[in-house]
């Protein structure tokens, strides 16, 4: 596994803010915990869908959405712990290969929400290498803001299934809480795509 990098030096709020700059018609799904706070901190948006439970599901929600909306770019923003709980989803998603789906794993190598215990990622599991082995079209480990900008441009191209691990500092910035009313967020999201409530 080579040298183990436990998280990194990137600022998570700066990373997510950059990824969501000039987002256009990008659709965003967030994994519960800090990833949701980061996306909310960058600005609430009708095209955001925040998960507050169902840990491990963010990538699969992204897969269903990307499959139903092939002409829209879909970005899943989640943490290494949340992605690890949906480890098998990487295999499922790799078989489907939606060209419009990008998974951004904010990797601080820790379970940040529960007391900063060291995670599998922090102990040597490289999720981008797992995704590459599964057959994702493009994967990367990103350690600087130039890499973040590269990812931002690539995810709008809808030219292949992508996953990047973004090596961020193990720290918890002040929480910026997204709405917890899941029905509201769901109906708002669907309305933005032109779907009425039942």
């Amino acid at each position: 596994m080579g040298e183990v990098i436990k998280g990194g030096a990137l600022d998570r709020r700066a990373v997510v803010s950059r990824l969501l700059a000039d987002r256009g018609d990008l659709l965003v799904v967030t994994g519960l915990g800090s990833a949701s706070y980061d996306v909310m901190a960058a600005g609430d948006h009708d095209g955001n869908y925040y998960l507050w439970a169902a840990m491990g599901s963010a990538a699969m929600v992204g897969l269903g959405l990307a499959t139903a909306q092939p002409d829209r770019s879909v970005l899943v923003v989640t943490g290494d712990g949340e992605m690890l709980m949906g480890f098998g989803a990487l295999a499922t998603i790799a078989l489907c290969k939606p060209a419009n789906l990008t998974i951004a794993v904010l990797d601080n190598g820790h379970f940040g929400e529960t007391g900063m215990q060291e995670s599998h990622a922090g102990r040597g599991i490289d999720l981008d290498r797992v995704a590459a082995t599964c057959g994702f079209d493009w994967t990367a480990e990103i350690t600087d803001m130039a890499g973040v900008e590269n990812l931002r441009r690539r995810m709008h191209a809808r030219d292949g299934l992508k996953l990047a691990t973004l090596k961020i500092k193990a720290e918890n910035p002040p929480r910026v809480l997204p709405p917890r009313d899941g029905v509201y967020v769901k109906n708002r999201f669907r309305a933005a795509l032109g779907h009425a409530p039942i």
Partner: protein
Amino acid sequence: MTIAEPELHPGLDWQDDVYRVLKEHDIKHVVYVPDAGHATAIRLAEADNALKSVVLTTEEEGIGYLAGAWLGGQRGALLMQSSGVGNCINTLALQVCTRFPLLMVITMRGDWAEFNGWQNPMGQATEKALNLMGVMTWRADDPKDVAPLLHGAATTAFNGDAACALLLGQRLIGEKQWVK
């Protein structure tokens, strides 16, 4: 020693009925963990270019997938075995808290004439566990009940943003032949 139930002739048409009723309800996504009882529906779904079929590594992946497909404006269904219900329990909170139509078709094990007793604990807990998590349930043990009950479950799910499951009883599916 395996003893066949007298006068039991499980029809195979009910397996076709599952696929047909799903199509009638405009299902665009069939996500599944395989089971022999779902073999026909899975085969027909895989061959159908008008819908997306997705094989899962574990059943709860299907709940996230269908939540996402519904966000994108499309209907789907999750096919699995009763053992998979146990894998879904925590993830069912996603349906409770966001209220999207979640249609599940579940083949039962540990339910009737079970050879493998290791299937019994989850099989016996399946319907109660679903109900505890807010899922409405119906069960079919007779081939003629499959189509109307699945129609009812789908109608209830898609008109009520509800979680609905049809349980296909082990007696309907027939005894698994372990020793030929």
